[in-house]
C-alpha cells in the first residue's frame, strides 16, 4: 500500500490508515487481542438479545458457573484439559502453515486407541494403573498419529488439500468408533462401551482427599499434567531444536526452506503425525480421565475445533495456549446450561472473526490528522 487511504471529509479530522513500518511494542498485540475479545462479547450479546435471551445474565452466569468456587474451577480445568492438547496439536501444524482441521478426528481416534487397550484386553484386566496408563497413552498417540499420517502423506505425495482431507477424516473417525461401540463393545445394545475398571482411570485430585482434605470432590485429573508437560516439550521442540527451526522456516518461507535443503515432504508427514499424536493424547486423557468408557457423544464434542481457535488466539505459543484453554474451558462448561444452547459455539465463532480482523491493527496504524493539516 504505497499511498494511504483517506476518507471522512465531514469530520474536523481525517482518519489515515498507513502501514506500520516498525515493530509495535511487545504489549501491543495482547491489548489488541483483548480488545477483539471485548468487541466479540459485545457482538455476541447483541445476537443473544436478538434471539430473546438476556446477554448480561448469560455472561454473568458463565463467569459464576466456571470460576465461582474451587469445585467449578476444577471442572473448568477438566474442560480445558482436552482443549490444551488439541490446541497444541493445531499450533504445531499451523506453525508450518499446514491447516490441520482434523484434530477432532485425531482426538476421537486417540480415545479409540486408548480404549482398545482396555476393551480389547491387550493388558490383563488386573494389571496395575501404572501399567495401563502409559500403554493407553502410547496407543492413543499412535492412533492419532496414524490419523494425522493419512492427510500428511496425501498432501506430501499428491498435493491433496489437507483442510478437506482432515475434515473428511473427522466424519470417518466418528463412524469408525460408532461401529465398534455398536457392533463389538456395546453395553447391552446401548451406544457405548462398558465402563472401564477403576485401575485404568487417570488419578484425580479427589483420589488424594484422604491426605489433603481440600481436594475432596475435585475432578481435575492427570490429563492436565500431560497437557502442561506436552506444552513445555513442544515449546522446546519448536523454539529450541533444529527440527523446530525447520518447521518455522517452512511456515514462514517455504521457498527459502527448499533452497536451504530442508525436506518439505518429510516434514509435512512428520508434523502431521506429531499433530495427530498430540490430539490423540488429548483423546486418551479424556477417555481415561473423564468419560471412562468409549462413547462418541461426550468425546466428539468439538474439542478439536475449539483447539483451532485457541491455537490462533494464543498466536501458536504453547505456554499461552494453556491460559487461553482455561478461558475456553470456562465458556464450554458454563455454556452447557445457558439458553439458547448454541451460544458458546457462536461466541467462539465471533471471537475468532474479531481476532482475525484485529490482526489488521498489527499491520497498519490508524492516525487522526486534523483537517487541512498535511504533513
Amino acid at each position, binding site marked *: 500500500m504505497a499511498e494511504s487511504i483517506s476518507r471522512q471529509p465531514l469530520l474536523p479530522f481525517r482518519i489515515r490508515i498507513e502501514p506500520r513500518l516498525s515493530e509495535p511494542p511487545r504489549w501491543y498485540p495482547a491489548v489488541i487481542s483483548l480488545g477483539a475479545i471485548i468487541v466479540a462479547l459485545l457482538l455476541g450479546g447483541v445476537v443473544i438479545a436478538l434471539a430473546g435471551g438476556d446477554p448480561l445474565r448469560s455472561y454473568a452466569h458463565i463467569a459464576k458457573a466456571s470460576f465461582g468456587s474451587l469445585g467449578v474451577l476444577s471442572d473448568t480445568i477438566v474442560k480445558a484439559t482436552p482443549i490444551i492438547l488439541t490446541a497444541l496439536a493445531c499450533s504445531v501444524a499451523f506453525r508450518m502453515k499446514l491447516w490441520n482441521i482434523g484434530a477432532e478426528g485425531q482426538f476421537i481416534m486417540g480415545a479409540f486407541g486408548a480404549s482398545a487397550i482396555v476393551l480389547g484386553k491387550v493388558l490383563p484386566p488386573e494389571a496395575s494403573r501404572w501399567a495401563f496408563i502409559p500403554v493407553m497413552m502410547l496407543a492413543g498417540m499412535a492412533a492419532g498419529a496414524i490419523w494425522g499420517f493419512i492427510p500428511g502423506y496425501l498432501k506430501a505425495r499428491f498435493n491433496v488439500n489437507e483442510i478437506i482431507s482432515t475434515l*473428511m477424516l473427522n466424519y470417518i473417525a466418528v463412524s469408525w468408533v460408532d*461401529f465398534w461401540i455398536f457392533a463389538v463393545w456395546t453395553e447391552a445394545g446401548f451406544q457405548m462401551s462398558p465402563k472401564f475398571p477403576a485401575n485404568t482411570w487417570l488419578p484425580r485430585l479427589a483420589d488424594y482427599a484422604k491426605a489433603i482434605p481440600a481436594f475432596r470432590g475435585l475432578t481435575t485429573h492427570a490429563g492436565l499434567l500431560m497437557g502442561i508437560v506436552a506444552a513445555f516439550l513442544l515449546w522446546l521442540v519448536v523454539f529450541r531444536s533444529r527440527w523446530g527451526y525447520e518447521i518455522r522456516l517452512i511456515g514462514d518461507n517455504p521457498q527459502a526452506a527448499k533452497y536451504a535443503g530442508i525436506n518439505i515432504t518429510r516434514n509435512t508427514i512428520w508434523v502431521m503425525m506429531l499433530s495427530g499424536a498430540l490430539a490423540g493424547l488429548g483423546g486418551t486423557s479424556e477417555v481415561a480421565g473423564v468419560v471412562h468408557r468409549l462413547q462418541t457423544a461426550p468425546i466428539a464434542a468439538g474439542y478439536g475445533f475449539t483447539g483451532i*481457535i485457541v491455537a490462533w488466539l494464543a498466536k501458536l505459543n504453547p505456554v499461552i495456549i494453556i491460559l487461553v484453554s482455561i478461558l475456553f474451558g470456562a465458556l464450554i462448561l458454563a455454556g452447557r446450561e445457558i439458553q439458547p444452547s*448454541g451460544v458458546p459455539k457462536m461466541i467462539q465463532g465471533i471471537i475468532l472473526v474479531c481476532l*482475525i480482523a484485529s490482526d489488521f491493527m498489527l499491520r497498519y496504524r490508524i492516525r487522526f490528522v486534523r483537517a487541512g493539516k498535511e504533513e
Partner: protein
Amino acid sequence: MDLIVILQAGVATGTVLLFATLGEIFAERSGVLNLGVEGMMLIGAMTGFSVGIKTGNPWLGVLAAMLFAGVISQIHAFITVTLQADQVVSGLALTFLGAGISLVLGEGLSKAGTVSPMPAFSVPLLSQIPILGPIFFTNQRLLVYLGYLMIPAAWYYINRTRPGMHLRAVGEYPAAADALGINVYRMRYLYVFVGGVMAGLAGATISLAVSPGWFSELTTAGQGWIAVGLVIFAQWDPVRAAVGSYAFGALRRLILDIQGPTTLFGLANPFYYNPYWGFFLKMLPYAFTVIVLVIGSREAMRKRLGAPAALGEPYIRGERGK
C-alpha cells in the same frame, strides 16, 4: 430397490451440492477461497425453514436464506479483501460463526412445525426420454430444474462473457485487471456475495425440499466441506462440478436406500442383515471426497492446470510483484 428411483432422488440430493459448488467456483475464480460454505449453508437452511414456517411460503424462505447467507459472506469479504487477512483462517471462522448463529437463532425450530413442501412436477416431452426422462425430468422440484439451467449459464458466463473474463482476470492476475480499470476489490466482494447467496440457496434446498426440517448441524452434515472438495475435483469448471455433485447425490441416496430391502439382486441383502455395516456405508461420501481430491490433485499436477493463480492471495494495490 429401483435404481431409477434412487438416481432420481440422487439428482435432487445432488442439487444441494451443485448450488454450493457453483457458488464456491465463482468466489474462487475471483481469487477468494471461502471455506465458510458449511456455515453459510447452515445459515441458509435455518433461515429458509424458519421463514418458510412463519410465512407459510417456502419461496420467501428461499429468498431470505439467500439474502442472509449472502450478508454473512460479506464478513469474509471484508476480512480478506479489505483487511487482507488469511483466507483460510477467516473461512474457518465463518464456518464457526455460521454454525453458531444458526444454532442460536434456530433454537426450538426443529419442533416448530412443518412447511408445505414445494410442488414437484414433470416436464412434458423431456420426461418421455427413456432412462434420462424418469431420472432428470419426472417429479422433480423447481429448484432441481433451476440447477440444470444454472450449469450451462455458469459455464457460459465464466468462459464467454465480458464480465466473466473480468472475473477470471481478477482471480488470475489482479494487478493486470486493476491496470485495465477493473475494480478488483469490488469484484471480489461481489463474487464472494454470489458464493454466499448460492450456499444459502443450497442450505434452503435441504431444509425446504430435499429433507425438510431443521436438525441443527446434522442438517448439512458436512456437505459444505464436500462442496469445497468438489471445486478442486471440478478444476473450477461448472460442468465437471455438476457431474461430481450429481454423482455424490446419487451416492448419498444409495447409502440411505440400500439398507432397506431384505433382498438385493435376488440375494439376501448383507446390509439389511448386518446393520453394523451401515457405519461403513456412512463413511463412503467422506472417503470418496478424499479419493476425488486425490484424482483432482493428480490431474492438476499432470496437466499443470490448477487453481486460479491469485487464489488465496490478498490483492494490495501498488505492491510490487504478483
